[in-house]
């Protein structure tokens, strides 16, 4: 318990068949620290976490826990030493109560009959330790996500966990729940627990952790105190190139560029008269807090939500949009915010996903598909988007997140939209794939497409948009030029309403 380092890896290597997942890893995690692991997908963060928690056994090297060399054969061995894991998914018995979950695996019983009083007593101890005020008899699935995460933390505490490995714990949480969860992590540190924190969100990592270890291709680039790092230095180390190079230089459309989309007085159940213009070749950024109406505006323009009034012109011609079919016909395409829920047919092939909205153009009489025509265009797209592996007959669920996102782009680039709405175009993909998407968006604008881009990552808006529209409470409240005068602060002030920007807690959540 008093060892300076709770866990130490000395020369750990791990190979999965042809892939060297970890190569001679040396890292030491101080007791009581929050120690972050960052790196691209495939850098080896999760593998290292799994070795420490006993899920995977290393090929070589030593794992030292509190000064002792250990050889974990299974997670329960690690648990015995006080090591547990919290992952991005909630892994609770969702239909059971908070009490049952917190004390899962250590129920107090006599002759097989549960001793409820004893359990409540233990539950209250845990509640006091953590300070989480959750009722024991509530079913877990009635709780919000952040509270379910609390239950997982309580479970870890009830098991006397002294090292908690958190693997992307906030990936599935809303911004607000994330803020709550980060407080929980700080609290665990205050209780003297050690935490290994794996995350894609670099600002989150820098705000939270004491130390950060940066990994690339199964090796450690460096371990340093977070005070010595910035998002820029982290990305440079993760990628081997700097953040400034992430965004291609902005090429503003000429002032006389034709107008791709013009909307006047758009009304619906949420909008009371939206005016909006996007020029051909322009990337218009749509910023605002979650719930400000950004995505709903996108969905409304795309015909997925009902329009009750106003006029829409595409390339100068008025269009009437009552359904997504109408929008597609008019040349308005939308990349939805959730790749898996709204975007892709995960169990169909790349080919079938990409041509789905365009089958009318490649079918003959009686709706028979012209296979050759379909395939030749698909091959072009797969090559142009660099979808890996470049096999159109692969099912989409076998691809990585980045390649799934590229497939989703391909679906909307089968022919040329006039206005392309991209809602969270890089959500949940790694930094390398993000850069590819940025280049693609810029290239599409250069070809003369009007682009309306929604993003919660404000750097993305700052780095790509030629003009920024800020939404608040269902209205466009500010329009900012995308030149060098554009700052994060300006966007945030507009998003919150002028004077509140500094002291609203969600600012941090939104920026991450």
């Amino acid at each position, binding site marked *: 318990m008093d060892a300076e380092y709770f866990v130490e890896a000395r020369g750990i290597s791990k190979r*999965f*068949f*042809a*892939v060297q*997942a970890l190569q001679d890893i040396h890292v030491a995690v101080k007791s009581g620290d929050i120690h972050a692991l960052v*790196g691209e*997908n*495939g*850098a*080896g*963060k*999760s*593998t290292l976490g799994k070795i420490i928690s006993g899920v995977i056994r290393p090929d070589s090297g030593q794992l030292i826990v509190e000064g002792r060399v250990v050889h974990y054969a299974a997670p329960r061995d690690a648990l015995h030493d006080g090591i547990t894991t919290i*992952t*991005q*998914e909630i892994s609770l018995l969702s239909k059971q109560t908070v009490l049952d979950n917190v004390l899962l695996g250590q129920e107090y019983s006599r002759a097989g009959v549960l001793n409820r009083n004893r359990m409540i007593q233990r539950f209250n101890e845990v509640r006091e330790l953590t300070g989480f005020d959750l009722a024991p008899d509530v079913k877990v699935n009635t709780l919000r996500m952040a509270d379910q995460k609390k239950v997982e933390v309580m479970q870890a505490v009830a098991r006397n966990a002294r090292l908690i490995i958190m693997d*992307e714990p906030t*990936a599935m949480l809303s911004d607000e729940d994330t803020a709550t969860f980060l407080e929980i992590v700080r609290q665990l540190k205050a209780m003297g627990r050690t935490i290994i924190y*794996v995350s894609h969100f670099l600002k989150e990592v820098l705000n939270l952790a004491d130390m950060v270890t940066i990994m690339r291709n199964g090796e450690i680039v460096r371990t340093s105190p977070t005070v010595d790092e910035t998002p820029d230095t982290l990305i440079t180390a993760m990628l081997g190139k700097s953040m400034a190079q992430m965004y291609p230089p902005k090429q503003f459309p000429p002032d006389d560029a034709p107008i791709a989309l013009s909307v006047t007085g758009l009304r619906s159940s949420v909008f009371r008269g939206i005016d909006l213009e996007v020029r051909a070749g322009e990337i218009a950024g749509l910023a605002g807090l979650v719930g400000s109406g950004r995505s709903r505006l996108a969905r409304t323009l*795309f015909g*997925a939500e009902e329009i009750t009034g106003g006029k829409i012109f595409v390339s100068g011609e008025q269009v009437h949009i009552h*359904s*997504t*079919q109408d*929008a*597609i*016909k008019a040349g308005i395409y*939308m990349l*939805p915010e959730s790749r898996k*829920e*709204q*975007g*892709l*047919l*995960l*169990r*169909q092939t790349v080919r*079938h996903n990409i*041509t*789905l*909205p365009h*089958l*009318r153009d490649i*079918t003959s009489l*009686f*709706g*028979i*598909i012209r*296979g050759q025509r379909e395939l030749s265009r698909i091959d072009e797209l797969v090559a142009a988007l660099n979808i890996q592996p470049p096999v159109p007959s692969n*099912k989409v*669920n*076998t691809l*990585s*997140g980045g390649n799934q996102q590229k497939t989703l782009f391909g*679906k909307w680039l089968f022919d040329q939209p006039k206005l392309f709405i991209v809602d969270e175009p890089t959500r*949940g993909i790694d930094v390398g794939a993000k850069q590819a998407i940025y280049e693609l968006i810029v290239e599409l604008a250069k070809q003369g497409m009007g682009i309306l881009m929604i993003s919660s990552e404000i750097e993305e808006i700052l780095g790509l948009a030629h003009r920024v529209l800020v939404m608040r409470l269902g209205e466009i409240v500010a329009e900012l030029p995308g030149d060098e005068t554009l700052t994060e602060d300006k966007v945030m002030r507009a998003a919150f309403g002028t004077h509140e920007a500094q002291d609203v807690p969600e600012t941090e959540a939104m920026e991450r």
Partner: protein
Amino acid sequence: MTTADNVQVTTAPAKPSRSVSKLLLDYGIVIAFAVLFIVLSFESDVFFTVRNQLNILDQAQQIGLMAIAATVVIIAGGFDLSMGAIFAMSGVVAAFVARDLGEVESFAAVAPYAGWIAGIIVGTLIGLLNGALVTVLRINTFVATLASGIVIRGMALILTQAEQIRVSDRTFQSLARGEIGGVRNTIFIWLGFALLMTFVLTRTRFGRYVFAAGDNPEAARLSGINVNLIRTLTFGISGFAAGLSGVIFTSKFLLGQNDAGQGTELIAIASVVIGGTSIMGGEGAVWRTVLGVLLLRLIENGFNLINVDTFYQDVFQGLIILFAVALDAMRHRGT
């Protein structure tokens, strides 16, 4: 590293063993069918004769037609439990039209054909109505078609007053008992329907939409597809198939019965599952269902030939269905 990427890293290099188990999961039905077929060929002298094989194919028509249509419905994300009722209703209507029109002298010659067609049309219309009901009211297809099936069978009972509707014109029987080159019409009908639906599912726009509607209806809608219309049409197809099957049944025995085809919808769905089409929707193929239907027929036919007690047949069939569903679940955990 996300979970998904991790899975890739750990499993991709393990290709040999993974692809073998995947092959077993994907083509289990082919192996099961082949093994049973070979065993029965050795165990029984009668089994592998042209006459017996044609017999099996003929007997498979009733469930076959319905199971093929059920495949389309299931791929699109639905279930149709009213097929057995539509089967009865169409048969009853066909018998009524053939009998009553046959009594009108000037129509007597066309009465049998009119009966067939009327039965099929009624089946298709009921199917479409079913589909519209399910999609417009957004009710669970399982429960909705269970209910509409009860209603339809009840209406068949009211129509017939529980009497058998007899057709006397033998021409009416030619649909089910007619032959072309020594092969029953029924075999051409159901295998032809299998080919047609294979083509529709794999080569047409509608087919792609069916898969899309079952895989992810929201993504399909956001791709400009009218998911409700597609689902409704799949119910139209199942109504058509159940109606046709019911008409053939009536034609075979020259009898319209309100209680015909009870439970056939369940055997049809079981055949789909045995073939390996996923009950989750979005995946599947007609050839699988054809093998699933034939496998059940082989078990019945073969077990009779080698004198296995019929009681054991039910147990065996039930176990096969259970096994098929377990395989389906395994496939989905695997991906």
